């Protein structure tokens, strides 16, 4: 008789099968405790440098606002888009991205209402058209994503529009039909300023990333920012969210727009460094976004938007 030893048999459930070589998912962090109210500066940061603007740059970076989107012919293009019979990949992508576009639509309708001070009839008209506009934007996004997955991205031949820009393009036609001229002018002015801001944000963060890797001087940062502003291409940063912490790769910008601002050592590092386009497949929302601003009243008794108390 064999030796009397009981062995416990542990059955370990297998993880769902993963592809070989894929990084395992990171564990979720523990549930944080509710914190009590603290002093103004985070503890340990009392001696940190004061926030504020750095010394005024010698040559200000002038960011020119982009032109307003071309609207003519867009309505026909969008109808053709919606009429297309798409393949299963695109249909799946549409299903995947639609839930992300809906809160964008809600927020943007509220924005248009603030900027243009719409009346009830205008809001109803926009609301009635909004679902179709979202479908157009989602289809365009999905088709571009699907196309990019098949194209060699190193050639950089595809440009993925920002989802908010796609929505505004989709709304452009119905806005032209709905808004009064002064409302349209106010809306166009705000959109120009927003696009100019986004371009400036992209350039400043790209310069900051290059600075971190190449240790630029003050003058070099300014010179580089000017060069990028002059020659900026949207496909250099196709997803602005990717700039927030993806700074261990340099951006994929042609050498001729960067190297004139660098010294010889920095040029050597730039030329041999790995670069990327800051694009993302899949979702564009960063983390878990709060619910969108949603005040687009459609009831008979209009509710005035609460104006800011002081500007």
């Amino acid at each position, binding site marked *: 008789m064999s030796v*009397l030893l*009981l062995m416990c048999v*542990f059955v*370990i459930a297998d*993880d769902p099968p993963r592809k070989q070589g894929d990084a*395992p998912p*990171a*564990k979720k*962090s*523990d549930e*944080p*405790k509710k914190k009590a109210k603290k002093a*103004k500066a*985070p*503890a340990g940061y009392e001696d*940190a*440098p004061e*926030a*504020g*603007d*750095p010394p005024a740059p010698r040559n200000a970076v002038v960011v020119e606002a982009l032109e307003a989107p071309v609207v003519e012919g867009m309505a026909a293009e969008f109808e053709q888009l919606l009429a297309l019979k798409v393949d299963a990949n695109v249909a799946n992508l549409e299903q995947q991205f639609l839930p992300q576009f809906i*809160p*964008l639509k809600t*927020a*943007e309708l*509220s924005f248009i209402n603030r900027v243009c001070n719409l009346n009830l009839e205008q809001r109803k008209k926009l609301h009635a058209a909004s679902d179709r506009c979202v479908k157009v934007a989602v289809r365009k996004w999905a088709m571009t994503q699907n196309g990019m997955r098949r194209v060699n991205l190193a050639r950089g031949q595809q440009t993925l529009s920002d989802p908010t820009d796609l929505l505004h393009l989709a709304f452009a036609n119905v806005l032209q039909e709905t808004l009064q001229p002064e409302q349209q002018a106010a809306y166009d002015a*705000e959109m120009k*300023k*927003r696009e100019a*801001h*986004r371009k400036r*944000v992209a350039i*400043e*963060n790209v310069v900051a990333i290059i*600075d971190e*890797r*190449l*240790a*630029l*001087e*003050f003058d070099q940062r300014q010179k580089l920012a000017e060069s990028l502003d002059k020659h900026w291409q949207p496909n250099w940063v196709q997803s*602005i969210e990717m*700039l*927030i*912490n993806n700074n*261990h790769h340099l951006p994929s910008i042609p050498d001729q727009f960067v190297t004139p601002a660098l010294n010889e*050592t*920095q040029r050597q*590092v730039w030329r041999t*460094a*790995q670069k990327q386009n800051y694009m993302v497949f899949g979702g564009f929302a960063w983390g878990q*976004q*709060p*619910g*969108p*601003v949603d*005040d687009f009243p459609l009831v008979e008794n209009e509710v005035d938007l609460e*104006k*800011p*108390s002081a500007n």
Partner: protein
Amino acid sequence: MRRKLENYRAMSAGRIKQRDDERLDNSTTATRRLHWVWLPGVLFGLMPLAMTSLAPAQDKAQAEEEELAIDEGFNVAESHFDQWLFGSQSSDHGLKRIESLLSLKVAAINRVCDLTEDQVAKLELAGQGDIKRFSDDVAVVRAKFMKVRRNRNAINNIFQEIQPLQARLHAGLFEQTSFFQKVLKRLLTDEQSSRYEQADWERTQYRYNAKLSLVVTMMERTMPLRAEQREQFIQVLKEETKPPKAFGQYDYYFVLYQLAEIPDQKLKPIFDEAQWKVLKQFAAQGQAMEASLKQHKVLP
């Protein structure tokens, strides 16, 4: 007579021997019978104690068996370790990038502070010390990775060990607690220090201001702002928040955490009621990340 006596004695001896043998046999048999009676009882009685004392050793042995067990068809190539850590296919390439960053950093300080040759040499040596320290830590984790790269369960634990190394790399090996910074502080004259701090402040502010604008842009996905509101909001953030001691992957949440600390009277006038509600949700997200920010040493 004598022969009879001898025969008798022989016969008696034989009988005694036989008797003794029989007694011995009986005794052995009885003993054996006794063993079969008490031994299982003792074993069963002692078994829980034996299991308890043997359990840690068994668990360890079993754990080691599992750790080294090979899952058929599962094999993570060594290059994946380098990809996860350095973002490149080879550690040589990754380490060369770090060394080039050291050269650039020393050159940048030299431009600002006009270092002597001796100062440059000492700084480079200190930086090499930081690289060596990091490489040694990487080697330890790499050795563990090589042991478990064919085990589906164990590979998860290794990735938890790689992440702190990644964080160190992205935060920069020559910042804050590095040999490089310690040597730099002792090496520079007062005048050089002043110039260096000014340049460093400018760089940090540029980078932080760019991040603030980026965070606001990201928030505008769900809370679009008019141009005037946007500029005012960014200005308040610049005045009321501070840059992190080291930039990294938690910059977004670090800004949101500080957003929660800004007094309402400085922010509320900028937004209307619906925007204010969404803004408070962003601030709440930042506060909820406090534990993670402390865990990753973004907050003390």
